[in-house]
Every structure is written in C-alpha cells, then in structure tokens.
C-alpha cells in the first residue's frame, strides 16, 4: 500500500478517502469512468467509490432481483463492464448471491452495486411482504416440496 507522501494522513487507504459517506443512493459519478476492463488487481471496493455499507439493509443474499421493465437500454451501454455484467444476469429473477457468483464480484460489492442500479432505475429489488421465518404456510410448502424429491 503506497500513499503519495504529504497528500493524505497516514493510515487512510486511498480508496476510502472519497467521497465522504454519500447519504443519497447511487452517485452515478462512479459510472463515468470509461467502460474498459478493470485490472485484475483492482481492490474490490474501488467499484463502489469506497463505500462498504449497502444503502439498503433489506438486501440479503437470497433477495431476488430483476431488470426493471422499460429501463433505458442505451444508458446501460456506457456503464462499466461490472455493472453491465450485473444487468446481464438479472434478465430473469436471480438472487444477489447468484449475481455475485456469476459476475465474479465480491458479495459486499455486489450488494452495493445492486442497490445503486435499483436507485438509478435499472433493477427491481423484490422485498418480501411477509418474513418466511414467521410464516408456517411458507415453511409447510417447503416441506411438501422437499418431500416430493426422490
């Protein structure tokens, strides 16, 4: 980790410097960099401008995500390849964990980027109306479904 001398206080990692904790979701400024292939040694949270907390705590590993119908296809083409890769996996309903695996992105990074893309109008995050943990009906359906496996 090399910090240019005299520029930053020591101990702060370069990718954590800017921007100072965005309150509103999705700073699209991060998308304005040219859509070239990122170098392999890029630190994962560069893509999120150093943010390590997702905007939406309700986004979980299994949360389902889909392309928002009518999202402008032209705007997606100027995005970094990582974001395009996320959009490409969401054509049919898919979980955040699957997006992470298929787009080869860290889970934490994926959650933040999915939140950004939702805030920008490209993705729908499907929140559950009822927590399955407290729903005997849902659990019984899972039980019946598993019993049918042979």
């Amino acid at each position: 980790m090399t910090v240019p001398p005299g520029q930053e206080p020591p101990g702060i990692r370069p990718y954590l410097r800017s921007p100072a904790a965005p309150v509103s979701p999705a700073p699209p400024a991060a998308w304005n960099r040219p859509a070239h292939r990122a170098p392999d040694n890029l630190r994962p949270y560069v893509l999120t401008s150093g943010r390590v907390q997702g905007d939406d705590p309700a986004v979980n590993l299994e949360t389902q995500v889909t392309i928002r119908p009518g999202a402008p296809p032209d705007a997606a083409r100027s995005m970094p390849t990582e974001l395009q890769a996320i959009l490409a996996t969401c054509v049919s309903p898919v979980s955040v964990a699957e997006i992470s695996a298929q787009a080869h992105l860290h889970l934490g990074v994926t959650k933040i980027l999915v939140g950004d893309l939702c805030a920008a109008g490209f993705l729908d995050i499907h929140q559950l109306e009822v927590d399955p943990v407290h729903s005997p009906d849902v659990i019984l359906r899972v039980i019946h479904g598993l019993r049918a496996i042979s």
Partner: protein
Amino acid sequence: MDSVRSPDAAPIPVKIVVAGGFGVGKTTTVAAISEIPPLTTEAEMTSAGVGIDNPGHRVNKVTTTVAMDFGCVTIDRTLKLYLFGTPGQARFGFMWDDLVRGALGALVVVDSSRLDDCYPAVDYFEQSGLPFVVAVNAFDGVLANDLESVRWALAVADHVPVIAFDARERLSVRDALLVVLDRALDRAVSGSHS
C-alpha cells in the same frame, strides 16, 4: 415494490444455512440436493483476529476473503430454497449475522471424529436462537461415535435433534433438511398467534 405478479415474477426466496468446520462435507451436502452445481461467491470479512493469523503490525483487525458455496432447490414457481454453506470459523461472526438474518434454520454438519470443529457453529446458533440440527456425516456409512456420545460431547439442549446422515446421498440430505424445517415450523407456529 412490485404488486403485479407476472408469470416471470420473482419467487419467494427462503434459505437454510449449512454450517460446520473445514472438510466436514458442507459443499457435498449442498451439491447433493441443489439443482445447480454449487456456486461460489467471495465475501470480504473484517473481524477481530486476536492471536489468530497474527498479521504483524496490523494488530486489531483482520480482513479475510472467504469463499462461500451455495445452491438452490426450486420448490415451485413461486418458492425457491437456497442453501448456503458457511465457513465455520468463529471469527467470521460478521458473515454469520448476515447469513442468519432471514434463515429458516441451520444444519450443522459434524464429523464425529473431529467434534471440536463444530463448536463455534453450535455456540453461535444457540446464542442467536436460530433453529438448528446437528447432522453427523457418516463417512462411508460409519460413525466414529454413536449419536448419544455426540450429543453428550456437544452438550446441546434436549430439543436440538442430533441425527446421522450421508452428505453424498440426495435423499439423506433431504431428510436432514426436513428435520431442520420441522424445527423451523415449531418456531413459526409458536411465534405467531393466529
């Protein structure tokens, strides 16, 4: 968010955590029943790492990238079960909190000849109140210790099922998951007043 249910609507996702130490058969368990080959995702974890993997001058925090394997079973068009295999170390507590939020329950996979590997998982689920089942993986159909000895050694409460299963057999994994779901159902019924 979306109130219209189209044929392509997103299913309700439910999840069960598959926990245990290294090499006890978590990924084998997931692979046995998943309809897709298990996928791997990487998560970056930060946790206190006192005395473990001493990183030299960075004393108080350890950032580690851990791999997590997962698979899924489509129950029907509107319901999908995810199985997440978790790294078993106690010091990855941050990840477990994330995993356990919204989970129906957990299957703690145990190698009966290396019981101590599962202590962190058992401790964690007891404290978090997540319904869990201890499933002793019978490597080659043989248990190094009988189930009562395992129960005694782990000192789990009487209501926690301790079962034997074979992580390579789809039906055996299915039955183990059904025991977890039974416990999950108990929690859901006792928690709701309807």
